[in-house]
Structures are given as structure tokens and as C-alpha cells.
């Protein structure tokens, strides 16, 4: 479970990214974060991954109180989270297999487990025939599949995606979203997006942000601003 309680984030220059935001996300829930650019979607995601810390309020992710002053479990927390970026962030000097395997290597998984898990995950995202291909030979859609595979492999319970379809054409976007659909109910999925069609079509929980505040929390919602 992810709990944000009265979370505010003010940057040193004075702009407020989040203002007194509170919400809860249950385990294995599928949630869309929507809102205009600058509404605070990315700030929420970055606070979950501990890239930025709130100015006030508390954030609890599973058993971790990440706002506790003595919190020192950042690495363990991050090992529970899979991240997908708009610009994919794949490692250009590693092939598809190695890009996905890196998620397990950082947690010191053994070689046989890495081999089995990577093959299984590449099958899930439809890249099983391209495991030895390098990123330069892949399309944007395929690169995002690699990023998704890297995010979901292993025991990562929470998947957060920041505009995962932002750089993709509509058809590829749908293909990517189908992968998320496959993961529904197995992992907590939080997707920040601008894609109206996708949000409306999925009919999942939608948190609508505006100027750093949650203005709507719809259990089965569509894209409304």
C-alpha cells in the first residue's frame, strides 16, 4: 500500500509542486495520474522512488516510512519498484537481454535465475526473439517494451510509469498498454499520462491533479480535467 498524507513539496525557488496531497493506493491497484504539465504527476512518482523528498507530510510505502528522518532503506525500497520512463532510458551498449537482466543483477540474483526470468519476461513483452539485439536496432515501441520488461522483472511489486506512451504512435501505445493490462491485479501500477483515449478506455482509478492538488479521485474514471 502507498499512502500520501498531507504531502507538500515546495522547491527552493518558491514554486509549489504538490500542495497538501493525500491519497492511498492499495496493493495491486491500477491507477492513472492525469493532469496538465506541471500539475505534480512526476513529483508524486519521484517521491515514491525517493528522488525527491517532500517538504512536509508523510509517505508510507508498504512498511517503509520514507519521510522518517532516520529512513535508510532507500535501496531496499527501490528494489520493490520498477520504473518506466517516457524516454525509455535503455542502456545503449547492452543488448535486450542484458538491459532486462540488469534489474536482477543489481540485487545479486544468480545467473540461472537471471536467465530464466529474463526469458520469461521477454516473452511477456513480446521480445523473445530479440534478446541479443542492441537498442540501436529497435523501434521506439520495442525500446519501451525493453523498459517495461526491465521494470516488471523479479519481485518488483510496484510499477510506476511516467508518460510511457508519450513518445509512441497510437497503435504502439495500445500495444504497450496491453502489456500493462496483462500485469493488472499482479502488481501495483501507477501510470502518469496525458493519453485521453487510454485512460478512458481502461476505466481504472484516476487521480486528477491540478496545480499541485488532487481535484478528483475517481474509482472507475475517465480523463477529465
Amino acid at each position, binding site marked *: 500500500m502507498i499512502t500520501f498524507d498531507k504531502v507538500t513539496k515546495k522547491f527552493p525557488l518558491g514554486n509549489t509542486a504538490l500542495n497538501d496531497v493525500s491519497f492511498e493506493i492499495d496493493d495491486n491497484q491500477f491507477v492513472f495520474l492525469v493532469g496538465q504539465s506541471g500539475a505534480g504527476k512526476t513529483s508524486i512518482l519521484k517521491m515514491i522512488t525517493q*528522488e525527491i523528498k517532500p517538504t512536509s507530510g508523510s509517505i508510507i510505502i508498504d512498511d517503509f516510512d520514507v519521510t522518517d528522518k532516520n529512513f535508510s532503506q532507500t535501496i531496499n*525500497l*527501490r*528494489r520493490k*519498484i520498477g520504473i518506466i520512463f517516457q524516454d525509455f*532510458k535503455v542502456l545503449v551498449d547492452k543488448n535486450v537481454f542484458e538491459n532486462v537482466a*540488469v*534489474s536482477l543483477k543489481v540485487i545479486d540474483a544468480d545467473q540461472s535465475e537471471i536467465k530464466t526470468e529474463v526469458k520469461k519476461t521477454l516473452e511477456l513483452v513480446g521480445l523473445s526473439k530479440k534478446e541479443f539485439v542492441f537498442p540501436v536496432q529497435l523501434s521506439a515501441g520495442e525500446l519501451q517494451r525493453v523498459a517495461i520488461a526491465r521494470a516488471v522483472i523479479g519481485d518488483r511489486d510496484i510499477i510506476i510509469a511516467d508518460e510511457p506512451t508519450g513518445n509512441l504512435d497510437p497503435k504502439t501505445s495500445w500495444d504497450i498498454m496491453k502489456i500493462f493490462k496483462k500485469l493488472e491485479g499482479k502488481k501495483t501500477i501507477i501510470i502518469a499520462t496525458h493519453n485521453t483515449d487510454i485512460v478512458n478506455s481502461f476505466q481504472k482509478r484516476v487521480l486528477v491533479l491540478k496545480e499541485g492538488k488532487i481535484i478528483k479521485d475517481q474509482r472507475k474514471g475517465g480523463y477529465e480535467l
Partner: protein
Amino acid sequence: MKEIWTSIRRTPYQSFSAFLILFFTLFLTLILFVSLTFLYGTLNYLETKPQVTVYFQNKTEENQIFKVRDELMSSGKVLNIKYISKNDAFNIYKQLNKDNPLLLEMVSANILPPSLEIYAKKPIFLPEIAEYLKKQGDIDEVQYEKDIIDKLLVLTNTIRTSALIFFSYLILMSIVVLTTMILFKIALKESEITLLKLIGATNFYIRKPYILESLFLGFSASLLSFGIFSFVVLYFNPFLQSYLKGITTLSVDVFNYPLTIWPLNYIFFGVVFISISLFGAIIASVASYIATNKYLKV
């Protein structure tokens, strides 16, 4: 190993520059290290020779000589004193000239003076001891290698101080240059490091490839330095043998264990190689540690 090669291949100029700077540092360090070792070995060797020899007049009573000996021993500046009586001196003379009967016939024990061979605790006490002896009565002559000892002391101190300054500069320079080189390499992988941090990699996991590559370069540079050094030393070995003729052994204390440095031997070469490799590894590790630090604050 494969990853190290890949990294070197992808940034060959940075890797080569890092290697060159490491080689330069290690080779100079090696020369300084061996030069200082030989200087200390020579000092130790000189300390095993009688440093002050005092010859008494022929008429001097043994009691008088023993009095001087006891006073010197109680001064705390003397390590050992050997008394050479007239008869001892004659025996030494006989031994030295056993092949020359004519010289043996001309000399008897009576004309040889009794003497004391004095070994000081530190060479700096020698002038003081010599001055003390000159003030005693019944002294015929005080001999000590003042000039050589003084020069060697001054030389050793000068080289040690200069080496320390030069050595510190070398370390600083090589660490700064190496850090910069590694920073160039890491800058190309900044987004990769950020990603690794976000998916839960430990700092050690991120640092490991850079440290391993630096260690590899450090080891290669120390191997090359040692190879060139060994070749030069072995090439000039005949010259060294004639130059150090008469000196059978030179040794220095390493953690209370005597290490023989002359004649050249495998153990000495081994110690030099291990020391220079360790030094290279330390410089390389420190530089890569500093360089990676900058990118680990995600």
C-alpha cells in the same frame, strides 16, 4: 575482464591517458623507492664498520684505555666498543700480511698501538665521540670517516625530504589527472548510473566496473614499470658489481625483518614488485572512488 576490455575499447584515449599517467607515477616512484633503499642499505652497511678508531700511545696502560671505554659506554651514545690490544693488532697485521714475510719480520707487537673500535648508536653522535676522545690524554690518533658519514647523512636527508615532496606531488597529480579521466568516462554514462541507482543498485555495484578498470590499468602500469626497471638494473648489474666491489651485502630492515638488497636477489625484486603494484592499486582505487562519488547522489 570482458567488461574491462569493452570499457577500454569504448574510451581508448581516456584509458590510454590514465595508463600513461599511472606508468609515469609508478616508474618514478620505483626509482625513488629503490634509490632510497640502496642509500639506507649503504648507511646500514657503514654502521656495521668501526666508525671511530682511537689509537692510544704505546705506553698507555690498559686500565686507562678501559676507563675511556667505560665512560664512552655509559654515555648512551655508543652501541659497542671493541678493544684491540697490542697482541690483537699484531695478529691482525700478521693475518693481513701473511704472504709478505719481509713485512712480518720488520714489525713486532711492541710497535703497534692498542686501540678501541667504536660503533655509535647513530651517525650523528660520531663528531661528539671523536671530540671527547681527542680531549683525553695518551691518545695518539682518532680516525673516523667524518666526511663520508656526514655526506651520506646529508645526502640521505636531502633525498628523503625531496623524495617526500616529489612523491606527494606525484600522488596528488596522478590522482587529480586520473580522477578527471575517469570523470570523462563516467560522464558518458551518467544516465546509466542514475538508472542503476533508481532500480536499487548499491554504490559498490555502480563503482565496481570503474574500480576494476582502474585496478587493471594500475596493475598493467606497475607491470610495465617493473619490467623496464628490472631490465635496466640487470643490464647495469656488471657495472654495479664493480662499483660496489668490496661490499658483500647491503640490507635494510623492513618491519624488523632484514631484507637483502645487494647482491640483487629474487626476494628484493619480489618486494619491489608487490610494493609498486599495491601503490598503483591504491592510487587507481582512490581516483575511481573520488570520480564515482560525484554521480552517486541520486
